[in-house]
């Protein structure tokens, strides 16, 4: 006979504020099979868990229902507590009285009834739970890092230094990400290249890291510890083993008029190019859409000049299949371009640029070798207007969040501009200066006090060009919302940070959830910021939401820590909530008819055809067999099986039936 213990949690007063916990406990005591039912202020606290342990020993309970927060929060906590008290952890279930009840309803009798229903549902279910043992699964001790920005680099180095193999996949010809485009970095103004390039070289030289650049993720199969990843290594048309990076081909290539993505359109580059001087690997790439040979079949000058004859025009894309144990997504972010703003001219004014373009102007390896010059006529701008919150905090434009880093880099731009153009004036239209990091506010004060950046509190309503000047029409809400008109030589929009262009596709390949802005969703905003809901897949950096460099690096090290801990034991325990085919005595062997509809629906092809042979070897029957190592417990096969021969632990037919029954027929 079932001996069930019910524990109702007040969760401080998160639950007891709207649910009468004592009444629920009292009602639960009357459920058939419940022998112990109490309510307590903090079930998940240490005394709370000891309460559960003692009750299990005292009443030798066969099942426990903790009615508190969402099972997605503390199911592991209470299952561990039950295990310590000698009850199989999978005999413990949670009723969600907080997120699904107390937090979303009013304090009234209906809410109490709902709480009682939810507890009754889980009590009926737990009566039918089986004692299960976790499944042991081998772990491939190789990590996949997607994205070669500062986050990817940090994660890869930490994992490699922990002694594990790392495979880094970077979409661009070189690693470095957006940080390699920056001139200096806040709050210390140290040169971005100087602190990044050594780490990039370290990645190239680290024996544990296998680097694939100009490559993308084609598909990911499997699950934590046992992923199979297919990487599409796009053809660079260069034999990487032969090329010594002399760069002769890039200088000799006649086709020089292609927009340079690294310089954000402010400079041109040849069809065969290395994105920037400190590129790692320092191997050029031929852009097939631009190279004259690929378009007309003529030219081949690069092939002629290359002493190492490394040019390989017939090189094809390569699909590399590799087993990995864990995946770190560090794909970074992008920023809105200036054409996103109708009121600032739809991007047609050349002297209205975005933050990254200003970084290129200020960068020594940039198109203007570090001098701040206007893209239109190359003049040194004497008056620049910086517009913060361009697109961010703007639900009308579909971006309601704050992009976090613009206040800081706008202050930095004002300082850099003052250092390079002493008689220049910087105006900054801002909403609220958000400089909450260490030494951050001091940095913005420096821009205001030492480099006399003129901060104007208000938004810019319109910018238009007139006689080579940019007329910026804004407001100063600290002066009674007076209209302010500035004739500027150049305007820098601190545009909104958005998800990278391929983020959604990658999320669907990896089956990780993402939000409406295509940023990846973390498992829990506070407690699991670097994990996703999919075990074995982690998030670092701005791909999760706009972040500055310190946060991205910290998150990357966090991911490295998580992955190292995953790889620390040779075997991985996995939830035993998997599907099982029922077996019967011969001659039927199983109720399975061998129609294998289950096999065709299984996304993990975890279902095989088991052959039952009689003594002299001829085939008697074919049955479905589920490989416990591969089954992820989605349960689609259970619902598709006509003869109900398959059942899934944790969500068996009788459990689900009893839950619905408990909810309604009382």
């Amino acid at each position, binding site marked *: 006979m079932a001996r069930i213990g019910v524990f109702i949690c007040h969760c401080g007063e998160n639950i007891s504020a709207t649910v009468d916990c004592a009444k629920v406990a009292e009602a639960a005591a009357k459920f058939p099979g419940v022998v112990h039912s109490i309510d307590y202020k903090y079930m998940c606290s240490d005394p709370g868990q000891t309460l559960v342990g003692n009750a299990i020993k005292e009443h030798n309970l066969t099942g426990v229902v903790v009615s508190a927060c969402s099972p997605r929060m503390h199911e592991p906590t209470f299952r561990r507590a039950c295990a310590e008290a000698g009850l199989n952890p999978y005999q413990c279930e949670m009723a969600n009285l907080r997120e699904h009840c107390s937090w979303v309803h009013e304090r009234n009798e209906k809410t109490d009834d709902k709480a009682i229903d939810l507890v009754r549902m889980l009590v009926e279910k737990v009566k039918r739970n089986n004692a299960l043992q976790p499944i042991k699964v081998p772990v491939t001790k190789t990590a996949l890092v997607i994205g070669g920005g500062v986050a990817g680099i940090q994660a890869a180095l930490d994992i490699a230094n922990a002694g594990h193999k790392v495979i880094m996949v970077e979409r661009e010809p070189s690693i470095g990400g957006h940080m390699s485009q920056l001139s200096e970095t806040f709050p210390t103004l140290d040169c971005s290249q100087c602190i990044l390039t050594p780490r990039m070289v370290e990645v190239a030289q680290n024996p544990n890291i296998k680097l694939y650049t100009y490559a993308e993720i084609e598909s990911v199969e499997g699950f934590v510890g046992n992923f199979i990843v297919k990487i599409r290594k796009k053809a660079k048309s260069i034999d990487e083993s032969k090329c010594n990076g002399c760069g002769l081909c890039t200088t000799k290539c006649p086709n020089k008029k292609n927009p340079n993505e690294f310089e954000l359109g402010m400079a041109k580059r040849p069809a065969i190019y290395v994105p920037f001087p400190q590129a790692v690997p320092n191997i050029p790439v031929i852009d097939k859409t631009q190279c004259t040979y690929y378009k007309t079949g003529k030219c081949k000058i690069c092939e002629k000049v290359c002493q190492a004859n490394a040019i390989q025009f017939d090189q094809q894309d390569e699909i590399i299949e590799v087993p990995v144990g864990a995946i770190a997504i560090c794909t970074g972010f992008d920023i809105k371009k200036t054409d996103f703003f109708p009121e600032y001219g739809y991007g047609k004014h050349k002297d209205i640029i975005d933050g990254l373009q200003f970084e290129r102007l200020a960068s020594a390896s940039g198109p203007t070798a570090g001098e701040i010059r206007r893209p239109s006529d190359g003049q040194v701008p004497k008056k620049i207007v910086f517009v913060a919150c361009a697109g961010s905090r703007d*639900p009308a434009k579909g971006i309601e969040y704050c992009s976090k880093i613009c206040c800081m880099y706008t202050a930095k731009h004002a300082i850099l501009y003052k250092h390079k153009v002493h008689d220049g004036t910087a105006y900054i239209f801002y909403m609220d200066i958000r400089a909450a990091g260490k030494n951050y506010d001091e940095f913005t004060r420096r821009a205001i006090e030492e480099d006399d950046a003129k901060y104007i509190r*208000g938004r810019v*309503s319109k910018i238009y060009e007139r006689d080579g000047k940019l007329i910026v029409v804004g407001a100063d809400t600290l002066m*009674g*919302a007076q*209209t302010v008109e500035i004739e500027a030589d150049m305007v820098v929009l601190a545009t909104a940070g958005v998800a990278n262009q391929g983020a959604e596709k990658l999320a669907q390949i990896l089956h990780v959830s993402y939000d409406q802005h295509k940023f990846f969703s973390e498992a829990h905003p506070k407690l699991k910021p670097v994990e996703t809901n999919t075990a074995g897949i982690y998030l670092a950096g701005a791909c999760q939401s706009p972040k500055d460099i310190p946060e991205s690096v910290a998150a990357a090290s966090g991911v490295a820590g998580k992955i190292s801990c995953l790889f620390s034991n040779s075997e991985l325990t996995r939830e035993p909530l998997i599907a099982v085919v029922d077996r019967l005595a011969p001659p039927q062997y199983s109720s399975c008819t061998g129609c294998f509809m289950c096999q065709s629906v299984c996304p993990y092809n975890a279902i095989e055809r088991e052959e039952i042979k009689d003594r002299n070897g001829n085939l008697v029957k074919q049955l479905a067999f589920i490989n416990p190592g591969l089954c992820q417990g989605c349960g689609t096969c259970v619902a598709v099986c006509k003869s109900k021969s398959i059942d899934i632990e944790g969500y068996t037919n009788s459990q689900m039936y009893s839950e619905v029954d408990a909810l309604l027929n009382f």
Partner: protein
Amino acid sequence: MSDSHNHLIDNSLSGKIKQNVGVSLARCYQCGKCSAGCPVSSDMDFPPSLLIRKLQTGLPEHEEEVLRSKSIWYCLTCEMCISRCPMEVDIPPMMDYLRSESLRLHKANPAAKNIIKFHKAFLDSIEQTGRLYEMGLIVDYKARALNLIQDVALAPSMFAKGKLKIMPELIKNRKNIKQIFKKTINKKQK
């Protein structure tokens, strides 16, 4: 969505605006973009964003300033503010509501008397003839506003260019128009 905590009637002016016009002034975080783009903000005593700030406080003395302000009369409802507002605070219908409230409570700013007179003359002409009789409008407006000499020079050249219609055009079903006026604007006036 049964938003339980704010179903109690908020009888501040901004509460009434939310009730009658469906515009929630709490969304405005005072970015000033509407004031920057407003063509007549320099004429206004309180630019649009400042006007909203005064309504956000919910204090009676601020509400008084708003109802007696010039701003609500100078607003041309050219829709520039709503087309650029990041929080989509729909100011033009709010201005319409504030104007009719200001009229209802007889708090219209004296500086706007000409504008109000022009509108009244405009609507009177429609009420009589069903269409706008421009000559009648000018005469009626001058009688109310007593600035007889303004645009006098224009009249002859307007006439010469055939732009001045002497006789008003009367629509057939004027009763229907009178009905409409009785059930809307005149109903409130009494």
